[in-house]
């Protein structure tokens, strides 16, 4: 499993706090594993909770890239990259 970057640890901590995944630490999350279904097992309810937490912390609103949000939420790596790109704009 790859080492997490600082930004990935920050997003992982946000996920754990927003979704109340108390038994996880950021290091338990594989940056390339899927966040939804297979993988971390998140679902659409979590996606909305996460969207709220992201807008509170980073000050921008998430937009779907496709009906299943499969790109943004495909992995911790992808979600972190998406957040970084939105923060810069």
């Amino acid at each position, binding site marked *: 499993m790859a080492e997490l970057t600082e930004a990935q640890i920050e997003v992982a901590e946000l996920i754990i706090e927003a979704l109340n995944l108390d038994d996880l630490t950021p290091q*338990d999350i*594989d940056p390339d594993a899927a966040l939804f279904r297979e993988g971390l*097992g998140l679902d*659409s*309810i979590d996606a909305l909770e996460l*969207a709220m937490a992201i807008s509170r912390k980073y000050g921008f*609103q*998430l*937009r*779907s890239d496709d009906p299943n949000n499969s790109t943004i939420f495909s992995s911790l790596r992808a979600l972190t990259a998406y957040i970084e790109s939105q923060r810069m704009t």
Partner: protein
Amino acid sequence: MWQGVPVSRARFREHVAWACERLPQRPEAILLCEDRYRFLVAFTACLLRQQVVLLPPNRSPGEIDSLSQRYPESYRLDDSLLDGLASAGSTDVTGDWRLPADRRVALVFTSGSTGVPRANPKTWGELVAGARRVRARLGLDKGPARQMVATVPPQHMFGLEMSILLPLQAGVTVHAGRPFFPQDILDALKELDGPRILVTTPLHLKALAEPGLAWPALEFILSATAPLSRELACQVVAASGAPVREIFGCSEAGAMATREIARETAWTLLGEHRLRAGEDGFYLYPEEGSDPIRLADRFRCLDARRFVVLGRDTDMVNIAGKRGSLGDLTGKLRAIPGVEDGVFLLPDHSPGGREPRLAALVVAPDLDTRSILKALAREIDEVFLPRPLKRVDRLPYTETGKLPRAALLAMLDAEGPSVAPASAAGGHGRA
């Protein structure tokens, strides 16, 4: 409103005629379209081709497979079957599009306590009467044509009645999308220019109530699938500037009543519907005079038109607006090869005011939780996946073979090998 452009009534008829020519000759169609406009075209084409539309309770592969097996002559009608719709030529569509009121046009499936989804048959007359009642209550029969964005799937009874039948029967223009995040929803609303209506659920409204979102002007917001709290409704009214109205209904009866929770707790029945207590529960006596419909909730009637909801039968649970039967879910858990015993339950509290989640206890010495969750995910809607799924040596049966809720909760809380769905099993999180 499809692909960013309004579709005229004449063009819609051309699209339906185009689709009619392409549907296979079968008695039933499992309608899986995700694009709302394609669903509207496909639904109308099925009606004209005299095909019964089957609407599955969710999109899990297991559920759709079992529907295919139950209706062996049916076919799956999804968005791809309507590829090429945009290039449909102008055809002669001057035929008679009226349908007999007593024709059975759709089967709306809900999860039943027996484990087999229950089919709720709908005639064209019932669907039209339901749409007219809603149209009258919401005042859509007067004033300019309304424009609607819906976040609910058209396969769900609420989504079908509001986002498919109101456009067909009340001149409402509907946005083809199914926006998900708050900003997606507001962007879709901004694409519309008429008096706007948002059809959504408490789950989406919770996210929409956050401060800092720029709302366009709305005529009203319509919520259903689960009751709204007055607190959340007032937050949404303050954020959006629009009144929040609610629909009470179920797949069996469709929309039954409405309320505006910021003003009143009681529901007011639609049209000439009546609610009466029977020996084994409450029944809706439909305006049309058809057979009374047994309801899954308990009520207190205030007068002939108004009622409050007291609660649900204990077997039925509502997670994020999706209704499920604990008995059905337990049956599916026990049917997994390698599972010796198991039970689903709804814990009393959810941490931090979050959406409540189901939990499950399972006896399966030779399976790990990941593979159990993986097998379950094929059969049940993802919102019902247990959090946590806890492995135990045996379930706490009483001498009479019952599983007392208190004993199950105690077992769930006890220390021991518990694997929450999002825990770090195998270093990869859960299955």
